[in-house]
């Protein structure tokens, strides 16, 4: 393994993110090649967290654009501060300024509200980390627009002209795969698919994030989760759920897993009614046995 990749992996770990080589390699390539990194995977596998850790590692600003259906340019890129513009126009009336003078004033940077994408491009203090979260939720039209921004890192505002990126930001995009990301955008990026963690990795995550859980309980939790994810579930629990569950168990002063305890706290892990009713009862016992057999 290349030294720089190992170093990146280790520093991510120091920031509390347990990254397997695949994640560290992808991030290293994205940084070195200066290409956006598209990260896909089930909810709760730690996609968003990568961006946060990267921003901390580079000691730079994290600029986050949360996508949703109906997201448009005025929320993502920029908007003129209309109330402020109106006030300025009113104030200019008694001054007797010419319309051209007024326009020059009210269409200047001071009257521009920077939204995440513009902020990422115009940041002067050095390249920020731009996180475009859950890009699968935005509509196809926005995807095409984003592709354009990510290709040129410049934005044209009719009244102001073209704004070029001061520093090309580090761009991470995440998707829960609720729809397929267009080929054009995917090809523009590097691509990382994160799976649910292995047993060893999950133990290390629990140990890092919930140290109070102790070694034995952490291992039991991770084994149980491995067995649970082996079932046909509608919504498999992610790392976020594992951590919540570990915290819940610590709060309940548990030092080992028992069927009754699991039954009581299963709602922390499974958030679908069918999954819950399917696993409750007989399944819990057999999963626990399965987990015990694996140890």
């Amino acid at each position, binding site marked *: 393994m290349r030294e720089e*990749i190992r170093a990146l992996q280790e520093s991510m770990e120091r920031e509390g993110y347990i990254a397997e080589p695949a994640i560290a390699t992808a991030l*290293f390539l994205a940084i070195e090649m200066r290409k956006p990194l598209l990260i896909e995977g089930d909810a709760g596998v730690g996609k968003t967290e990568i961006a946060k850790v990267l921003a901390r590692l580079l000691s730079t600003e994290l600029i986050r654009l949360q996508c949703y259906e109906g997201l448009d340019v005025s929320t993502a890129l920029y908007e*003129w501060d209309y109330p402020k513009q109106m006030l300025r126009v009113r104030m200019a*009336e008694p001054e007797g300024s010419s319309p051209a003078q007024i326009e020059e004033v009210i269409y200047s940077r001071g009257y521009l509200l920077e939204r995440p994408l513009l902020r990422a491009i115009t940041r002067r203090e050095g390249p920020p980390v731009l996180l475009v979260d859950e890009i699968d939720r935005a*509509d196809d039209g926005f995807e095409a627009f984003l592709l354009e921004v990510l290709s040129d890192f410049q934005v044209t505002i009719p009244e102001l002209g073209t704004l070029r990126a001061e520093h090309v930001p580090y761009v991470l995009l995440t998707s829960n795969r*609720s729809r397929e990301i267009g080929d054009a955008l995917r090809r523009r990026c590097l691509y990382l698919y994160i799976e649910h963690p292995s047993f060893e990795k999950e133990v290390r995550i629990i140990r890092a994030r919930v140290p109070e859980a102790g070694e034995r309980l952490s291992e039991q939790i991770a084994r149980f989760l491995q067995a649970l994810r082996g079932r046909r579930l509608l919504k498999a629990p992610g790392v976020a759920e594992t951590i919540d569950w570990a915290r819940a168990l610590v709060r309940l002063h548990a030092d080992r897993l028992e069927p009754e305890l699991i039954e009581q706290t299963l709602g922390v892990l499974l958030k679908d009614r069918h999954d819950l009713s399917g696993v409750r009862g007989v399944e819990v016992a057999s999963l626990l046995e399965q987990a015990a057999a694996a140890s």
Partner: protein
Amino acid sequence: MSERDLIAHLARFSGILRARGVRTSLSDEADAALALTLVDLSDRDEVRRALAVALKVLPRDRAVFRELFDRFWAGEEPADLPPDERRSPDRAAAARRLALRPGRARDEILERESERGDTPGYSPEAVLRGKPFEECSAADLAEMERLLTRLAWKLATRRSRRLVPTAGRGRVDPRRSFRKAVETDGELLRLARRARAVEEPRLVVLCDTSGSMEPHTRFLLSFLLSLKRVAPSTELFAFNTRLVRLTPWVSPGKLGPTPERLAAGVPDWSGGTRIGESLAEFVERYRDELVDHRTIVVIVSDGLDRGDTELLAGAMRAIRSRARKVIWLNPLVGDPRFEPTQRGMEAALPYVDVLAPAHNLESLERLIPMVAA
């Protein structure tokens, strides 16, 4: 290894991937070439990881990618590579040529899989058995086009949450209102407005092509093809003992898609049915990408199943949990004596929003308000 060697190897490996249906483009190869200069080339796992990142290997292709990479790294010549790939010195060009003939690479893969014999109820003789279709009468087709235009129109009038500028109705849009007011010295003379956009329909259709469906398939396939024409984003699948994605076969091309060409693409045409297995495969491989809260999933089948009904119920539940609506079109429902007592149908019923007949044009016409609702 020199840079030229590296690029030659890469082009060759890309060609091998493409031949097995893993899509890679020239820009991906360029990314991969750059990525390889940044990693430890003696570390096999690291090279594999870097290639997966740079070539953008999707989760559904990961297993194939891994297998091919391991073999390629070991210097093994894939015996099942199409002849073009093995002979031509210019691998990239060969791969490009091959990409223009996806049908052929696919056939080979199908044949290979049948040799392994790991698919239950799947006989090699049935592979790619052509199925002759009589031509639809011109009057039938014209009538169907008219109906489907209506169907598509109904679907297309669903409103999305996205707001677009409109004249004179909808919510006030301060951005554009103020923008206009600036022209009139800050006097708000007219309010600009936005209203919810009209949303494109999203349909996924899974059509049963097994023997028991035989009397209806010609009609239904014409229906599906018309559907694809009026709603281009429609995804089409056929299933009998296995699932086949038909969308690439009916995408716009020089030759108009015909029922004959579709039949050529589906192995075991008119064979037995395994609805549960087929739908489970759909859930596994395609659901996450193709089905979301806006998608209507249409299943066309008589529900006569010789597979696992529990599997079917599970798959239906998984589809239902994600789709906007699940519609089951059953040609048998047209019979007044019909009761949904076939085992398969019974298992699926709890997860179906609409169970409707599909044996003639009239029954499809009745479908319109159900889909649009």
